């Protein structure tokens, strides 16, 4: 870290009236505040999407249940999917990227602070637009509200002939507006990482979190743009007499599928790569070892990004592509498993020979490794396209992608919360509540999503609001519902932990985990503009060098 010592400026915490405080939050262009805004707004949408999931689960608890009407059920799964992907998973990961990337590269803010604020408010407005459809939209059949076309709104179901009224227009606009926000943030992350690294932080010395967010941002640019284009085409179809996807006038339903999934599959990696990033920071710190095979991890990430751009049609194995196309997408999809497997092995390699400290972030990280392994293997099963002709559109595929999104992404996010909450608030999250949260959520997760694979194998399609008795689906669905409520209780424990610890948590200090990246060198929470003196680094783990001058990393790089 050379002779450049980081001094901590005196923080100014004079009491302000709350209006003043609110005004500051609404007009802020500070990357840390925007990061927290992203995270908090995502948690609000998580609550909405969670309630929708519980309504779905109550309805499916047993056969011929009448808890909600088919119309309401169809709105619930549409809103649940759209909310969780676009207004929970993406913005919460952008929030962490916003907060952490400048701190980890020794920068004082993002490259374009105003664009940053603009992007956040666009994303948030998108979410509000989507939920305004409950008030202002009208449904697929008869009177109603909220879109009910499924989160991918396949053509021609999204055409005016089959979705009259405006509810699906709110869906389109919500995705379009928040999509522009995502593009803005992606440009900002790329510019920040390429241009604002502190002296000595060469590209091969960046923390893996920064590397992976760079790759993620590049993928956002490639994935969100076709989605936005498709939404504009859909609006043209619906209001300006276009026929891109209007099958009644010769348009192509398959074209929409291609547009949607050439967004949709890279999107999975847009979500999971930042989670790989969390793992690549947290597992080393709690194993007390550097990441195993840093250059290979970077190469594997870039490789995943490239290959994942060529796998989208594995979502379309049932649409009747010819045998060559099916074989191609089988091969590319299986090929993604190789760099992904390399990552899992490298994380195990990092743990190997370490001294693991089982703090809550590490518990969630181990949960992530276990579940992501299974999610990857069920992914390989569905990559075998004939197997997918049975599994696709069934509850097996629902179980698979929830394994990725909940078992992988959400577990990684919880690890990130427990790990960086002390940096963001200056207080530690309670370890005791954290363990309750972890074990309850783990049990609920496995009860829900392990069991959910089986009705899929027994022929239960997704998106059905009811089913006939005697198919062997009843008991399984009841277990799944019990699991879902267990997860909901665990989330309540988590939220309680966030709130209680904010007021009563132990003081965190600068570096509660004895970690190695730059954000831990300054106070918690960090002062405005982060670094009083811009740091200089000479290795991948600047704080390790500082703490172990007798054996610095720079000696080995």
């Amino acid at each position, binding site marked *: 870290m050379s002779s450049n010592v980081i001094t901590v400026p005196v923080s100014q915490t004079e009491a302000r009236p709350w209006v003043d405080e609110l005004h500051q939050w609404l007009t802020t262009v500070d990357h840390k505040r925007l990061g927290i805004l992203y995270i908090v707004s995502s948690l609000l949408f998580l609550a909405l999407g969670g309630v929708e999931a519980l309504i779905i689960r109550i309805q499916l608890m047993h056969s011929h249940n009448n808890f909600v009407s088919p119309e309401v059920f169809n709105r619930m799964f549409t809103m649940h999917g759209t909310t969780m992907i676009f207004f929970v998973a993406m913005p919460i990961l952008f929030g962490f990227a916003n907060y952490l990337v400048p701190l980890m590269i020794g920068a004082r803010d993002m490259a374009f602070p105003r664009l940053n604020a603009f992007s956040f408010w666009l994303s948030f407005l998108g979410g509000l637009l989507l939920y305004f459809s409950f008030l202002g939209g009208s449904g697929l059949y008869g009177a109603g509200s909220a879109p009910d076309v499924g989160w991918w709104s396949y053509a021609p*179901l999204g055409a005016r002939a089959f979705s009259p009224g405006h509810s699906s227009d709110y869906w389109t606009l919500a995705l379009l507006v928040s999509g522009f926000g995502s593009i803005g943030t992606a440009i900002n992350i790329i510019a920040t990482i390429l241009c604002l690294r502190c002296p000595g932080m060469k590209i091969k010395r960046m923390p893996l979190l920064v590397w992976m967010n760079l790759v993620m941002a590049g993928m956002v640019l490639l994935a969100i743009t076709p989605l936005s284009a498709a939404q504009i085409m859909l609006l043209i179809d619906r209001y300006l007499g276009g026929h891109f996807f209007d099958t009644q006038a010769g348009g192509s339903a398959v074209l929409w599928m291609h547009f949607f999934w050439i967004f949709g599959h890279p999107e999975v990696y847009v979500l999971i790569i930042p989670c790989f990033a969390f793992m690549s920071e947290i597992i080393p710190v709690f194993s007390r070892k550097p990441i195993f095979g840093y250059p290979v991890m970077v190469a594997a990430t870039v490789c995943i990004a490239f290959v994942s751009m060529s796998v989208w049609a594995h979502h379309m194995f049932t649409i009747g592509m010819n045998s060559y196309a099916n074989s191609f997408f089988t091969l590319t999809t299986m090929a993604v498993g190789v760099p992904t497997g*390399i990552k899992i092995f490298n994380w195990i390699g990092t743990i190997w020979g370490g001294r693991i400290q089982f703090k809550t972030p590490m518990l969630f990280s181990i949960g992530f490794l276990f579940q992501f392994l299974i999610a990857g293997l069920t992914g390989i099963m569905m990559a075998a396209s004939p197997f997918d002709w049975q599994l696709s559109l069934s509850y097996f595929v629902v179980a698979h992608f929830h394994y990725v999104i909940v078992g992988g992404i959400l577990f990684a996010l919880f690890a990130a919360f427990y790990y960086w909450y002390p940096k963001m608030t200056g207080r530690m999250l309670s370890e005791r509540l954290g363990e309750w949260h972890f074990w309850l959520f783990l049990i609920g997760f496995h009860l829900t999503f392990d069991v959910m694979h089986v009705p899929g194998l027994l022929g239960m399609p997704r998106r059905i609001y009811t089913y006939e008795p005697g198919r062997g689906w009843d008991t399984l669905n009841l277990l799944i519902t019990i699991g879902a409520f267990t997860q909901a209780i665990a989330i309540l424990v988590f939220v309680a932990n966030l709130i209680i610890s904010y007021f009563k948590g132990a003081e965190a200090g600068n570096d509660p985990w004895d970690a190695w990246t730059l954000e831990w060198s300054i106070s918690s929470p960090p002062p405005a503009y982060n670094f009083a003196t811009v740091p200089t680094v000479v290795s991948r783990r600047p704080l390790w060098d500082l703490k172990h001058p007798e054996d610095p990393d720079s000696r080995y790089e």
Partner: protein
Amino acid sequence: MLMLRMKSSLRFFEQTILLLFWSATAVWAGEPKGSASHGTNIFAPASTPANSIADLSVFVLVITGIIFVVVFALLIYSVVKFRGRAMDSGREPAQVYGSTQIELAWTIIPILIVVVLFLATARVIHAIEDAPEPAGAVEVTVIGHQYWWEFRYPKLGIVTANELHIPVSDLGHPTPTFLQLLSADTDHSFWVPELAGKTDLIPNHPNRMWMDPQRTGLFVGQCAQYCGTQHAKMLLRISVDRADDFVAWVHAQQKPAAEDAAAIAGRRVFEGNACMNCHTVAGTSANGRFGPDLTHLMSRTTIAAGAAENTHDKLRLWIQNPGAIKPGSLMPAMKLSDADLNAVVSYMETLQ
């Protein structure tokens, strides 16, 4: 010779595991072994495409299972073995940055596994998708509608709905059924798990699939691609008949609608209302195509795409208020008087 023996023992191994999956899933489904199937278990295949998919599934499941056991064991071992202990407080473990040999090993081995899995899969893709249609095949055009299935046998001149009849196929003299899949409105997907994987019905995008069921009986399934409000009650029934039963069924279906003087009042109500705009009764002026063909309605065991049994009471309720059985169904409540309603139901019941 050795290869052959290896292949047959591999085949035996696959069959054993398939049986294991079958029993595990069948226990859940509550199926007694050997019963005539009403299940939708993908591990209880009764037709060549479903069979080769089940075999491939077992192969993939075994490979992924082995990977799981190995990686899971490594993970558990490393987490237990390298847990931090109180006595090593303050000391950091040896800082290891990586190893090129190990990285190479865990890159090359997965690549080899991918190659094996891909080749096994590509064979099955080709065998199912590129199978030629033999001369004796039965051809059916399946048209998906919002919440029901239309079945047309172009060579036989039959139109029916929701309950497909096909002949059993014997491997010596195969009589497979080839389906052409079309859609009248939104996307649907044809899925009867024990006979074949699913294929979508997409407007402007004709698809094809085939099946050669090797045992008779009733096979069930349903629409798998979300198609609107009543996607859940778009059920599918396939009756696999003995060759002579199938021929008898074809002859019965080819006849025009039965004429029964006693039901003339009901027929007048049917033809005097909007019923005839959507439904066909062959040999009468009713020739609509938005709803199912009713010429031989009474030969079917269910109504409303499998949502209800085809009984007098259910039929009456369905005509009076379709929403009571299938809310969101596109059939309107016709608001008939009780007398008219009874007359129409009586007429329907003559359509044997």
